């Protein structure tokens, strides 16, 4: 698989997660100041970096490559199916779009109830939990073809881009097209999960086109997901109209 495929998937996924983390850190900074809020975020990032290095080492211990590939493929499916389903639901209007302004306000209201120590913990936990998904993707995509540096680099570039963008506007990054990104990343991650689990179980003969199958799979999941979203949206609108008619 190409370096660019891994870079793009990791960069996009990390961007979405870092935007959410930045919103929390921004809200906390209004209570305890930028220095302490950034300190909490940096502590969480340090924990994530240690986890990434440690996991990379542990995964290589005593596991044959095709079992490692299978295990990573399963995790990617667990993760990607969830992202894609959520993106389809949001595209279809069945689920509200993620609103960074709302998230910002919720965090700010929560902070008004707590003390400064609690505020530090909120920033730390926020970055850690959002970063866990980035960690999972970096470890999974970086492991198979020994592309750890590419995946980790993509996550860092995304972190820098989001931090710089956030600091420039000093506001929640609500213009980031989160659902479109989640759609693409979900399709890419499900693609890698499908490809690797089948290749690990059935050998390379299971994919006669080799890595070209990855492109076909991404297109299939993207177009299929959009088609499902369109069908669900139409059904949702019809049901809403019907229930409005029944009420009136």
């Amino acid at each position, binding site marked *: 698989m190409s370096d660019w495929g891994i870079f793009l998937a990791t960069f996009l996924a990390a961007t979405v997660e870092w935007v959410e983390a930045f919103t929390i850190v921004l809200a906390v900074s209004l209570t305890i100041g930028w220095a302490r809020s950034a300190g909490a975020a940096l502590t969480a990032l340090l924990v994530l970096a240690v986890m990434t290095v440690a996991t990379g080492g542990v995964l290589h211990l005593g596991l044959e490559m095709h079992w490692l590939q299978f295990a990573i493929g399963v*995790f990617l499916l*667990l993760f990607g*199916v969830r992202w894609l*389903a959520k993106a389809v639901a949001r595209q279809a209007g069945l689920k509200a779009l993620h609103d960074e302004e709302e998230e910002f306000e919720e965090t700010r209201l929560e902070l008004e109830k707590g003390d400064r120590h609690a505020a530090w913990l909120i920033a730390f936990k926020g970055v850690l939990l959002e970063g866990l998904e980035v960690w999972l993707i970096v470890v999974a995509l970086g492991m198979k073809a020994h592309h750890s540096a590419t995946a980790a680099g993509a996550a860092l570039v995304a972190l820098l881009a989001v931090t710089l963008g956030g600091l420039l506007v000093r506001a929640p990054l609500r213009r980031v097209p989160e659902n479109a990104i989640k759609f693409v990343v979900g399709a890419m991650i*499900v693609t890698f999960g*499908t490809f690797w689990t089948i290749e690990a179980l059935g050998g390379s003969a299971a994919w006669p086109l080799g890595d070209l199958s990855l492109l076909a799979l991404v297109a299939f999941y993207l177009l299929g997901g959009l088609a499902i979203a369109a069908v*669900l949206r139409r059904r949702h609108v019809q049901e809403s109209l019907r229930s409005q008619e029944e009420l009136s």
Partner: protein
Amino acid sequence: MKAFFKTLFGDWVNLGFVTVVIAVEMGLIKAGYADHVGEVTPLLILAGVGWLATR
């Protein structure tokens, strides 16, 4: 810790669905249909994504 496991595995329905996908992949390969597993699995996954989206 709960949030950590939720990040890794999602909820029980998500976990159950992926288990079914893996079981189908294994079953098809064991039954000698390795040539078709790459066609059946994406269809199954997409159908599951559609179902999960409505939950």
